């Protein structure tokens, strides 16, 4: 449907002069707004980071503080993202391939983290694992630390990225239907090979898409992590927290140097995301999704 509209737009008659002027004005207004509102903040991050020159920038990145923060952020993402990928696949398999009572409720429960403020999300884990929380005294008796330690940061990150993969996969797999998998089962394929040879190749694009969104968010999460981290230098400070701490210490060059690394990751995310959207396979699958709804 969409490509038909595009085709039509191309061959439609040339608009009148006032219409063209209005069109040009709207396009210029939109570009101006996007530049002022979105591009300028991004540009200012890099401008501030390099304001003292390359050497100061490189020196700022090479401090132990930022290296530690980078390592922790990488570790947290490396645990949280795969767990959410597994959850996304499991939940979409259950929801898109079977009919059972309470399915709609389950779908809306998965969306809860989208409606919860990140700060509230972090606080919820304090209520469960904090010193006065449900498991607090048990954990401290066994000398286990969740809050103000890495496990809490991982949990909070899993929470905020919880629905990302599932939300991409569920509508996609529902639109696709289960004919191919049923055929594979009837022909005698074992459960694992049904998944590996039939399902996974079909869902790889939306799966990658959701994974990238989840990865970007888990690298950049601030509010939820800030509540559970305790800001212990060298131990529980992730990159976004390092940005905050350096900024509040008026160490602006270092703060913006750290911020520039995160901005760079964000720009990469946008490019990869756009590339997936433009890939023919993804577009075809989205079109199928639209026609089946």
């Amino acid at each position: 449907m969409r490509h038909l509209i595009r085709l039509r737009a191309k061959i439609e008659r040339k608009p009148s002069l006032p219409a063209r002027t209005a069109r040009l004005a709207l396009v210029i207004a939109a570009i101006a707004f996007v530049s002022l509102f979105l591009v300028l903040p991004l540009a200012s991050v890099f401008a501030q980071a390099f304001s003292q020159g390359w050497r100061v920038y490189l020196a700022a990145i090479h401090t132990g503080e930022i290296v530690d923060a980078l390592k922790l952020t990488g570790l947290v993402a490396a645990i949280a993202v795969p767990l959410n990928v597994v959850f996304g696949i499991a939940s979409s398999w259950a929801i898109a391939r079977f009919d059972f009572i309470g399915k709609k409720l389950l779908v809306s429960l998965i969306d809860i983290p989208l409606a919860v403020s990140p700060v509230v999300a972090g606080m919820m884990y304090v209520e469960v694992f904090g010193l006065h929380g449900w498991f607090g005294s048990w954990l401290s008796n066994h000398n286990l630390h969740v809050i103000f330690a890495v496990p809490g940061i991982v949990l909070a990150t899993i929470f905020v990225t919880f629905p990302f993969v599932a939300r991409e996969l569920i509508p996609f797999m529902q639109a696709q239907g289960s004919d191919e998998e049923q055929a594979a089962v009837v022909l005698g394929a074992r459960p694992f090979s049904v998944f590996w040879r039939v399902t996974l190749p079909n869902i790889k694009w939306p799966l990658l898409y959701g994974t990238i969104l989840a990865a970007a968010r888990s690298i950049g999460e601030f509010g939820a992590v800030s509540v559970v981290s305790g800001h212990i230098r060298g131990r529980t400070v992730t990159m976004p927290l390092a940005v905050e701490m350096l900024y509040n210490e008026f160490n602006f060059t270092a703060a913006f140097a750290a911020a520039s690394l995160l901005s760079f990751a964000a720009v990469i995310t946008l490019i990869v995301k756009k590339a997936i959207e433009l890939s023919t396979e993804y577009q075809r699958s989205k079109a199928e999704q639209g026609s089946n709804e």
Partner: protein
Amino acid sequence: MPSRKLKQWTRSFKQASPLPGFGLSLGYTLFFLTGIVLLPLAATVLRSLHGGSAEFLHAISTPRVAAACRVTLESALIASVLSASYGFLIAWVLARYDFPGRRIVDALIDLPFALPTAVAGIALTTLYAQNGWLGRYLEPHGIHIVFTQAGIVLAMSFVGLPFVVRSVQPVLEEIDPAMEEAAESLGASNWQIFSRVLAPASFPALVTGSALAFARAAGEYGSVIFIAGNMPMKTEIGALLIVTKLEEYDNVGASAIAVAMLGLSFVVMLALNLLQWKLQSRNGVRS
């Protein structure tokens, strides 16, 4: 024997299917959902009720908390209206016009999603500060953004923009130009085409997008705290007050505000979903 009973029990709520893995996938889903989402949510709600409803009401009715809630809601409301208006403009331009750099603009719309909120916060603050790229032109005219409520609104509308654009854009793309052409050939003016054809069709999506932007703005923390200045009673937002209370080990107070915020965002989302559903069924438009 137990496995047969399990099968019988499963059959009572699930339709038969030849595919494998129902028990495993649903079991894992429920386990993970309970552990990550439902258990902490229950703990928070129960904690806020721990001291009884009197203490809960007392915790959320102190002047400082009331002021923070007012600032948060007011700013989020203004921000979502702002996001809705220029979000609609951008969605319109992206959906209808082809121009050089369209794909770049389209990709950039998601920047507030991808950019960590702390980075957005310090970038906006630096930009609009007295000696910042934009602040140096605004401050002499008496327009103060940093450390005022205007700054909070600015940061909130920054994070809300993609929600509006991404809700409205696909709907505008789906509207058949033939409807507009028909209206035009029947003698409708541009304004009539917009208000009678385009607006009703895209309104449900605009409402959804604004609702999402509002919910995000009301709970936003990272991008707001740097530009807000965080003066109690004036530019302190609800999310920051929760953090402050937690740092003071006032868990009951913190969870009272959190539950109030949770309740509010659920109510707003529900109300707007109902409104959208109503509009959709009235207009017979799919979104």
